[in-house]
């Protein structure tokens, strides 16, 4: 088997209004079948994708925010959110929905998937990847 590569999907856009956020999520779900080391990053308006209590009824599109909670089933367990992007938008970690995964190596204990990181840490995370895909 070929070597595992580190893939990072970078999300910078709000969840609705453009198709980027949904497309990114679909690519992640499809790509998860290839058993690579996949993580996601949320910065700029991308942090809105993970906010809780989304309601899309008035704009007539599907609310796909619950799908982020399925990522753990697909072994995507690292969702990096940039602290500065949250702060610049008047948001904090408590405004994000709870997303967990079950750790196979730790008796299936539920652990949080969202990791809040600083801008500097985010730069290091990006530098550490083999492949970075921007949405």
């Amino acid at each position, binding site marked *: 088997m070929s070597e595992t590569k580190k893939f990072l999907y970078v999300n910078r856009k709000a969840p609705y209004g453009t198709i980027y956020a949904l497309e990114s999520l679909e690519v992640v779900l499809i790509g998860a079948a290839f058993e690579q080391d996949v993580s996601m990053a949320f910065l700029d308006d991308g942090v809105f994708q993970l906010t809780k209590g989304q309601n899309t009824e008035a704009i007539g599109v599907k609310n796909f925010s619950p*799908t982020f909670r399925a990522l753990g089933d697909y072994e995507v367990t690292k969702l990096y959110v940039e602290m500065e992007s949250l702060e610049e938008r008047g948001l904090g970690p408590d405004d994000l929905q709870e997303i967990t995964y079950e750790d196979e190596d730790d008796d299936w204990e539920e652990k949080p998937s969202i990791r809040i990181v600083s801008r500097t840490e985010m730069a290091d995370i990006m530098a550490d990847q083999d492949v970075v895909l921007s949405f």
Partner: protein
Amino acid sequence: MSYQVNGHTIEHDEEGYITTLSDWSKELADEIAKVENIDMTEEHWAVVNFLRDYYDEYQIAPAVRVLIKAIKKEMGPEKGNNKYMYELFPYGPAKQACKIAGLPKPTGCV
């Protein structure tokens, strides 16, 4: 293209997936199963109901590998395995069971 159930016409796409998810009913599931040559047993229903619950919670139909893993966790290894699932749904559990459950085709399924 459509299914006929109790005098109602229910539209489906060229592969047999219903186009309006809220059109689904247990009677429709039996009708789709008939077209797929599947005799719905309690075991089939368990998978179909599981898929509907999964969709309700996460808004997606799971990939087959995720489905089997989740079934294994919920119903045990004697059901959560490829052989058992393909015996129930010979043309692919995700594909056929999702169709009967009235869900869209699983993401990434061609």
